[in-house]
């Protein structure tokens, strides 16, 4: 991970960093533009998908999750998100089905 000298990479990490940075700015602009379009119920989905992509870029490349030698860190991230989504999904299930029948 951090002890790798950069000469061991075939390309400098700088290129990756700047590419991710540009992608993140582009994503921000896209999010804003998409919100100006009327996509009905898909507005939220599009916004969340773009946000998730941006978050993944930050996590994988800026936080070095992609190069992590063990699966452990990825497991931590996935498990945390799993439980968070669980909270939201099961709570929403209550709210979504309260006034049936």
């Amino acid at each position, binding site marked *: 991970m951090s002890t790798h000298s950069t000469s061991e990479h075939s390309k400098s990490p700088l290129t990756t960093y700047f590419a991710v940075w540009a992608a993140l700015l582009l994503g921000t602009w896209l999010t804003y533009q998409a919100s100006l379009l009327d996509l009905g119920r898909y507005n939220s989905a599009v916004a969340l998908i773009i946000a998730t992509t941006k978050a993944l870029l930050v996590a994988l490349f800026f936080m070095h999750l992609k190069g992590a030698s063990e699966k*452990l860190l990825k497991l931590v991230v996935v*498990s945390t998100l799993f439980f968070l989504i*669980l909270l939201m999904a*099961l709570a929403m*299930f*209550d*709210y979504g*089905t*309260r006034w*049936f029948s």
Partner: protein
Amino acid sequence: MATGNIPPVEREDYLNKHYGVGSWLFTTDHKRIALLYLISITFFFFIGGFFALLIRLELLTPASDLVQADTYNKFFTQHGMVMVFFFLIPSIPATLGNFLVPMMIGAKDLAFPKINLLSWYLYIIGGIMMLHCMVTGGVDTGWTFYTPFSTAFTNTKIVEAGLAIFIAGFSSILTGLNFVVTIHRMRAPGMTWTRLPLFIWAHYATSIIQILGTPVVAITIVLVAAERALHLGIFDPKLGGDPLLFQHLFWFYSHPAVYIMILPSMGVVSEIISCFSRKRIFGYSFVALSSISIAVFGFLVWAHHMFVAGMSVYAALIFSLLSYSVAVPSAVKVFNWTATLYKGSIHYDAPMLYAFGFLGLFTIGGLTGLFLAALGIDVHVTDTYFVVAHFHYIMVGGALMGYLGGMHFWWPKISGRLYPEGWARLAALIVFIGFNLTFFPQFILGYLGMPRRYADYSHMPEFQILNVFSTAGATVLGVGYLLPMVYFLWSMRYGKPASDNPWNAAGLEWQTQSPPTTFNFPEEPVVTWEAYNYDEIDKGQKEVPQVVG
């Protein structure tokens, strides 16, 4: 069975290495921090117990004649808050866990010793805040501080109590974080995951819950405080808020919290049953994985506390089904422990008596949980003494018994002294009898319809006799709890000095001196044997394999 020794020449150990208050208050030695916690949580246990005594005194008579209802509300609230947040949640992890986790894996200390000390200070700050809150007016909402009563109607010190719990919650999170990193990163060579004591697996699972669950109750407390201060409407139906949102967020933590309270105790029971049956735990991998399963499944069931609160009935159905599933890994443990006893060479020392108590009482508590998970039954017994009995069987009959068993089992290691076995067995018996006399009548009371959190039950005077039994039992139970306090303290001065491994037990912690040195092992151990290798240990009284430096 415990073996003593000719008193050794005074060896250097973690207790006598440095003297002075500063060497304790600024220590980073996990064993000293464990003792700091031990003193603190014992103190809070007796505070919580004091409130329990007041509750039981009031309930001796049907009328609310000892105190007014508002005051009684404060009694059960504070009993709950102190016992849950300042006793049960830290109990085993902060004391036995802190002491033993590094030793059991062959490490010199936890991964972050200073954060460990910070954990204790946060606990103390939270505790002092809670004490201050209680003596300056207290809280009367129940430990569950449901909205909108807690946010819009009560005049009691919600924000202060909430802040105290918030701070103590950070203590819990940091302990969990420390354990997970330690268990992953600091195992000695040869200590593979499948050679870990089940105590470690249990604490690992507990730590996962502490890490993932506690922050949610923390933010809930923030929301309650904000709502109280600014009348935001988040939980206020008059302003469009939903009181049930509070309950969802609160119970998302507080249900897994009960697994924080019971899992470490289960870890202790595995260690004790194995040692005092002289057998490897039956189905080791099932027991290990069941700890992880309990941690995971425990997050799926929270709304079973909300069946009659106004939630969607479809959601109630799902949560009921999920609640049945969470019983399975617990049952796996009980079956495996029982199978361990079969054809074991059983020794009835005090730790084992507590473990037996755990087996029976936890089973009863767990089975009654299934009753409560059934929607049809829950409608009738929710918010009655049936629920109170259910969770006390698990928390007191289960978790606390495991804690006491563990304290007895590892006392020689912690203090270098043996406790008096006769008195310990007597105390275990008194605890068992007192416990059942206190809480079994409560199952009946709840089933017959006595509501919980009522100071006055004079419209149901027929409940008095069972309440009197319960209070009598509580007195006996109190004696049972005081006895170990007395003889443990006595043993520190007058107890027989303990050998390094008085129980001839398996586990790395027994392979170093009693009490241990500051850095635990003279040289880093290299593990080449499986966990619970009692067959090897007992074969011709062969010595426990020595650590290879």
